[in-house]
């Protein structure tokens, strides 16, 4: 909050005309695309790279999420990638030389049923075995960590305890994107906005380039980073994935005095809340049930979410809603991402992060850059290959994803 405000985004990167060809074309100029560009340059010295964005830089899910960062996932595979990401978050301001307002204020994931208590204790123990800070806390301890939570036992879903990850936090999403963009631009990478991919040029099992609203661009390697719109791109390549695109809604209240010192999530009653640096309460819901690309949601989801929020936080009852929006998330059957090879030997896939994409930003950027540079998946993303839906080696993270899919 005391950090000096960063420069105006217009001055942070060039707006170049696309070149005829690049070694790597990243499709999608959101957090994942920009982080991938940064680590391609920083870790692998690959800078003949373009990041293509159909709208404005980081204007999709990067501008529409609730900015929560945590790594308390159940399975070893997920814990590894999310914890790698959290460690990168912890050094990211220094790496980017740019303020991102990273605030490690901890996350409470509430349990409301006997089954949730058992699952949560199990997850906390699994986290400890993976070297991740996590503990089970009682309702009284919840109250100590976040005094505004209602732990009364006469509400519809009383709080029976919570898992607590103290190193979890939030960051300012725009600054994160701008920080990565500035570094990538400094390294000579072209960030090209208003450039929608409309097709691909294919030669056998290789893609030779992308067709865009700003002309054809040749590509040595194509790296997809389009989140909810991945299916739209893959359809042009005739590749099928088990992705479903859904709206995920979030909203903010008016600015309030600091009242909420941590992050609180509740899977059962379905709301998650933090307080932004400026003072807005930032709240997320579950995904809208139906498929959608409209970047807006349905009101009844917000209604249900607000009912849950007011029961858990009676102090919110008179807060005014300032604005609401939706991002389009790409959900997979096991609530884990799909990363790695496609049937085209020089086209790589990064998708399926569903509701968990923001927290993964530096981690996946790091691992995806490695995957692109070496032509083979980084060990942290290898378990998330597309073929797991055939082999059955799923990474079933519905419990720890924190949002009902």
């Amino acid at each position, binding site marked *: 909050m005391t950090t000096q405000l960063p420069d105006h985004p217009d001055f942070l990167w060039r707006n170049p005309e696309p070149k005829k060809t690049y070694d790597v074309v990243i499709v999608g100029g959101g957090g994942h695309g920009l982080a991938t560009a940064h680590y391609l340059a920083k870790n692998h010295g690959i800078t003949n790279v373009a990041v293509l964005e159909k709208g404005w830089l980081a204007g999709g899910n990067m501008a529409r999420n609730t900015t929560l960062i945590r790594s308390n996932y159940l399975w070893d595979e997920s814990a590894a990638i999310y914890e790698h990401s959290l460690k990168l978050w912890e050094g990211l301001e220094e790496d980017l030389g740019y303020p991102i307002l990273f605030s490690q204020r901890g996350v409470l994931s509430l349990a409301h049923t006997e089954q949730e208590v058992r699952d949560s204790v199990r997850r906390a123990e699994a986290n400890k075995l993976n070297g991740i800070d996590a503990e089970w806390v009682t309702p009284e301890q919840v109250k100590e960590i976040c005094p505004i939570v209602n732990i009364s036992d006469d509400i519809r879903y009383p709080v029976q305890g919570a898992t607590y990850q103290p190193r979890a936090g939030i960051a300012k999403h725009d600054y994160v994107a701008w920080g990565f963009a500035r570094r990538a631009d400094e390294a000579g990478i072209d960030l090209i906005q208003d450039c929608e991919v409309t097709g691909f040029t294919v030669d056998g099992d290789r893609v030779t380039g992308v067709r865009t609203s700003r002309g054809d661009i040749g590509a040595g390697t194509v790296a997809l980073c389009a989140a909810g719109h991945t*299916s739209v791109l893959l*359809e042009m390549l005739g590749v*099928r994935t*088990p992705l*479903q*695109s859904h709206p995920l809604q979030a909203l903010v209240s008016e600015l309030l005095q600091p009242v909420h010192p941590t992050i609180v999530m509740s899977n059962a009653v379905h709301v998650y809340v933090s307080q932004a640096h400026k003072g807005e309460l930032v709240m997320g819901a579950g995904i809208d049930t139906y498929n959608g690309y409209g970047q807006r949601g349905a*009101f*009844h989801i917000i209604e249900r979410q607000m009912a849950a929020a007011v029961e858990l936080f009676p102090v919110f009852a008179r807060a005014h809603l300032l604005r609401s929006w939706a991002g389009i998330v790409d959900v997979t059957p096991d609530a884990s991402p799909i990363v790695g090879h496609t049937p085209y030997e020089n086209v790589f896939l990064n998708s399926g992060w569903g509701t968990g994409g923001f927290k993964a930003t530096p981690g996946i950027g790091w691992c995806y850059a490695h995957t692109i540079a070496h032509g083979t998946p980084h060990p942290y993303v290898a378990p998330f290959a597309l073929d797991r839906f*055939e082999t059955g080696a799923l990474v079933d993270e519905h419990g720890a994803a924190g949002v009902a899919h």
Partner: protein
Amino acid sequence: MQLIDCPWCGPREEVEFHYGGQASVAYPETPAELSDREWAEFVFYRDNPKGPFTERWSHAAGCRKWFNAVRDTRTYEFLATFRPSDPEPAVLRRDEEVSA
């Protein structure tokens, strides 16, 4: 929230309905002969179009019957609803009218 036209009950509020994903995904006729790839397709793979999508809905808080709908995933507008026994109605693909 919008009204959804249940083919049995007529227009009712969206909150009465439950979503069932892509319509007309049939159980394999020869399950013993399916490869792992084909099982994966049946169990996990569904279409995910940006535009008209034929899907299943249940009028969960009404007649509790399942029906099919063609809905535009860009605007969420229901272009048609029909009983599963009925043929899929031809609906206008309004690609020109709806910006992608």
